């Protein structure tokens, strides 16, 4: 078990790095607010499938990297990601057996919570942003969830994690 966990870590890290890249890839101005939270989607997936390896601690570290990459307040994304991943891990057994629509609804709720936490921290820190910056990623993220989860399932079966 331990050997398998150790060898399975690298591909997961690779997917997280790809997600981080997608977060900073330039988009046209019109599409920019609709950039899905790739990192959040990826971490939700891994927390759901491998909650023992990918849990709150790793989410926090990835969040700090994301904060630095985007130049937001240090700890903002870290906090939001830790809370979202915590909830995912807490209910991972339940969520894993959900049918597709129900899973999508759960992901929608998780992304909404994530954006709400970011919004809340921005409010406390006095950062002003248009409302579209918060709800657009939730919509696009939920729509892209099936694609992301199918892709990540491919990755995890390819490297023989289970």
């Amino acid at each position, binding site marked *: 078990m331990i050997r398998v966990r150790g060898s399975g870590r690298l591909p997961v890290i690779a997917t997280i790095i790809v997600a981080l890249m997608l977060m900073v890839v330039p988009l046209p101005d019109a599409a920019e607010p609709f950039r899905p939270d790739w990192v959040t989607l990826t971490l939700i997936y891994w927390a759901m499938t491998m909650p023992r390896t990918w*849990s709150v601690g790793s989410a926090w570290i990835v969040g700090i990297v994301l904060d630095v990459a985007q130049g937001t*307040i240090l700890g*903002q994304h*870290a906090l939001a990601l830790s809370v979202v991943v915590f909830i995912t891990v807490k209910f991972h057994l339940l969520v894993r057996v959900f049918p597709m629509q129900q899973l999508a609804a759960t992901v929608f709720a998780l992304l909404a919570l994530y954006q709400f936490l970011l919004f809340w921290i921005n409010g406390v*820190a006095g950062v002003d942003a248009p409302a579209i910056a918060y709800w657009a990623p939730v919509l696009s993220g939920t729509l892209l969830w099936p694609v992301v989860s199918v892709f990540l399932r491919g990755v995890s079966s390819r490297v023989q994690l289970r």
Partner: protein
Amino acid sequence: MVASRANSSNPARIPALGVRVLGAIALSILLMVLDHRQDHLSTVRQAVGVTVYPIQIVVDSPFRLWAWIRESTSDRNQLHLDLGRLQAERLLTSARLQRLAALEAENARLRGLLEARIRVRDDVRVAEIMAVDANPYRHNIVIDIGERDGVYDGQAIVDADGVVGQVIETGFTTSQAMLISDPSHALPVEVNRNGLRTIANGTGEFDSLDLPFLPNNADIRPGDLLVTSGLGGAFPSGYPVAVVRAVNRMPQRRFADVTATPSAALDQVREIMLIWSSANKPQREAEATDD
């Protein structure tokens, strides 16, 4: 936590999850307070930035490659045209520079007569904007030089036409800068025609700045050039910022409604210049006065 320990034999339970998330939240809040209230965390940012830098490079490289390909495959004719245009431009600017050199010498002499401090020319360095999107809530850009090259927080950035923004965060090899169009950016400016001082705020749109604190009887009209006044300390004085676009005087209001168009093409620039202002860098001033 007690419950999780009691159930640790249950394979579905993740040990100490609650404690971990509470720890993560506490740590995040601590970081946020430290980051927001004081400026103690730049070293942390730089350390984490080492992992971010390769990501930025990888994301930026296809755009760079594309630019390089386009440049190297542009045909001979085009290059000839460009060459002719650039030579003509160079002739014009050097002619202007000759006059400027004479004026600068005269200015220094007059200032000497007045016993005013002689203005020192600023050092500049060209940098490129990386094709990397930054903070989703702000008008930020990422540039390809950092602390290694002597970039410092608050440093002024201009392009060929005017002020672009200022550095807000320096990494080791890249930096983030805020554009003057960011809603939280304010820039001390003066009207070039008569020296009227005011503040130019960003509006969140690339093509518009707001001048909120001008009284109705202020001597300002459309077409006036706004230049940096140098009063905020961050920007050296005399760089063009914007051209006044509209002045609406409303008698019932205390202040006139003045908007301006930034001189720099904020959403199109790729190459920018960083200014080492003589006012901000005393050791550079010494170097600059030598020549």
